[in-house]
């Protein structure tokens, strides 16, 4: 149980390139924090600096208020799960889990080690595999052994480095919930690195979005989704991703590729003095008016659908459009930042599965202008971000986190009482 504090952390490699640049982060006791971003954003480097496998170029790293910059990994009392598990192939599962305990010479008797290992293996359902070697286990079992090795330590915090990326999709979903359950039950501070935004959204109390070594936004998943601070965060969070449409400001209306949106009060104020802005519209905020009634005050328009994908519970429609020259570079750069392939510009619409729109059809769509995010094309800042609302969401998520933690601890205590 401890808090981790990062102050102005910088990591520069030999060539002077800052892989991590001026990161400030305050991880509270028992919090589940996710570091997320596209490949090469410095998230793994940051995690390895926390655990001590990577030197810190400048800045302060504190665990429980104690400066740990110069401590070796073994003195930081953190447990880490590696992407490739890094199990010791010459040891049995039991010895793998017992390894950190055996290193603390004289601290645990053999009976104690045996008990701790068996507790951990029972929790992770590894009991029947204890005598096997890691080489004979499946991917999911290896993953659980790696977690077992982290649990027995009773470390101050857990660090996960993309622990699920080597598993297949179904197992990944199961292990994801397993990790969430374990973290709540143990109530232990956790830092988790991933490039998968589903993992980020579902697991994290707070999510840190990184781009090229710079922290973009630290917030609860809900706040990231509803109130992103900039173009990058907006494009990274959400699946399918947010649509970015170039829009011209002309008098009292905003000219989008398919429709003109009337500019009213606060929005007009925010875009004043700009000729062109980028409008972000989530696919799920567009509705097919033939099967569902559009939201209130909605703007209606027709567009030709190029391609549809029906998935049972939802349906995607793709509508190509021409990006305006002035913002095309900006959008292309964003696409590169998000590991995109720079393909055609198209709008994705998340339709109701009942919708009968087919390829080549003209769809009747509607959306509420209030659901639009408007971004400054130069800086990428979100002009429509509502700070008051964001603070409200943050406070709410924090309250929920504390409640969940409290509940988990109470339940744990009850169970301990029962078994006693």
């Amino acid at each position, binding site marked *: 149980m401890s808090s981790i504090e990062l102050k102005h952390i910088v990591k520069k490699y030999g060539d002077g390139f800052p892989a991590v640049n001026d990161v400030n982060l305050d991880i509270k006791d028992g919090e589940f924090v996710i570091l997320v971003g596209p490949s090469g954003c410095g998230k793994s480097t940051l995690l390895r600096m926390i655990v*001590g496998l990577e030197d810190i170029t400048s800045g302060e790293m504190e665990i429980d208020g104690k400066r740990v910059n110069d401590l070796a*990994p073994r003195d930081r009392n953190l447990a880490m799960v590696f*992407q490739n598990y*890094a199990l010791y192939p010459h040891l049995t599962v039991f010895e793998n889990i017992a390894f*950190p305990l055996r*290193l603390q010479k004289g601290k645990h008797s053999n009976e104690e080690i045996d008990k701790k290992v068996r507790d951990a293996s029972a929790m992770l359902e590894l009991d029947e595999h204890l005598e096997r070697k890691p080489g004979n286990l499946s991917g999911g079992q290896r993953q659980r052994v790696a977690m077992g090795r982290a649990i027995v330590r009773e470390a101050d915090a857990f660090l996960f480095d993309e622990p699920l990326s080597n598993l297949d999709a179904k197992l990944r979903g199961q292990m994801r919930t397993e990790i969430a359950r374990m973290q709540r039950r143990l109530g232990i501070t956790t830092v988790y690195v991933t490039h998968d935004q589903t993992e980020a959204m579902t697991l994290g109390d707070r999510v840190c979005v990184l781009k090229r070594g710079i922290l973009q936004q630290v917030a609860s998943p809900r706040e990231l989704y509803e109130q992103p601070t900039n173009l990058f965060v907006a494009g990274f969070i959400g699946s399918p991703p947010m649509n970015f449409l170039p829009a011209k400001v002309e008098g009292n209306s905003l000219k989008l590729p398919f429709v003109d949106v009337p500019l009213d009060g606060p929005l007009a104020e925010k875009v004043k003095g700009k000729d062109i802005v980028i409008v972000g519209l989530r696919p799920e905020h567009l509705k097919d008016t033939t099967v569902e009634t559009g939201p209130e005050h909605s703007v209606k328009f027709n567009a030709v659908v190029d391609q549809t994908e029906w998935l049972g519970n939802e349906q995607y429609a793709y509508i190509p459009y021409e990006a305006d020259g002035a913002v095309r570079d900006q959008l292309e750069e964003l696409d590169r930042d998000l590991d995109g392939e720079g393909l055609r510009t198209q709008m994705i619409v998340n339709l109701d599965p009942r919708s009968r729109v087919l390829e080549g059809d003209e769809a009747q769509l509607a959306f509420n202008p209030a659901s639009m995010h408007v971004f400054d094309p130069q800086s990428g800042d979100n002009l429509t971000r509502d700070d008051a609302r964001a603070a409200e969401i943050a406070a709410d998520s924090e309250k929920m986190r504390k409640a969940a933690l409290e509940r988990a601890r109470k339940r744990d205590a009850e169970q301990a009482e029962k078994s006693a």
Partner: protein
Amino acid sequence: METNISTKAKNGLGVVSIVIMIWTVIPLLWILATSLKSDAALGDSSKNVLGNFWPKDISWDNYKLIFSGGASDLFMPALWHSIIVCVVSTVISVVLATFCAYAISRLDFPGKKLILTTALAVSFFPVIAMVTPLFNLWRQIGLFDTLPGLIIPYLALTLPLSIWILSAFFQQIPWEMEQAAQVDGATSWQAFVKVVAPLAAPGVFTTAIIAFFTAWNDFVFSSNLTAQHAQTVPAALSFFTGASQFVQPTGAICAAAVVVTIPVVILVLVFQKRIVAGLTSGAVKG
């Protein structure tokens, strides 16, 4: 591994490998057969079967000669010298090479490339070119005809080889293994002893055996840098004499050759699995 080889190709490969096996085994069998021939049988083909190959009456005289007879003064000490020199130089070479290779594959320090290139360059020199200067030097500093006087050149011979093989091995062990151990609370030394060394064991075995063979089979150094007190078996064989100057000591030499081959064969058989695992895992880039 590809297994879709046609039956025809398989048969072809089988025939070829049998030919190669016969090609390599016949000289060894011939030595064995010769060592079992009596002096008379050596010069008279009518006392042998299979066209002078196998003796009709097996004689153990040659073995008696080298173990307890006239040649034992020469052979028995030489056998001891061989064992001591080879074991000591193998152990030192493997231990040193393990540390060196670990440092080369894991740590970043100036002169890393230099060490590897030097190690390779040293093994390029023909052994015979080093013998004469060494002979003069050894005589002056008193290492001539001593066991250390042989162990040192053998180290020079086996170390470069061991360093190269072992650094290839260490490079295959994922970095994360060690980092995991460090996070788990191990010091660098504990991580090395408990995680890296066990994983490198096949490599260490392979290296040890190769180093041992290199020293065991050496003739040039042993015959030139020793007289009596440190002579090893390959050199001693060349000093065998027959019963008279008209009798060649062929039988005794063959018997001694068989005796010195036995430890090698035993070593290979015992560690066969490990060597094979070691050789293949060393060959594949990890």
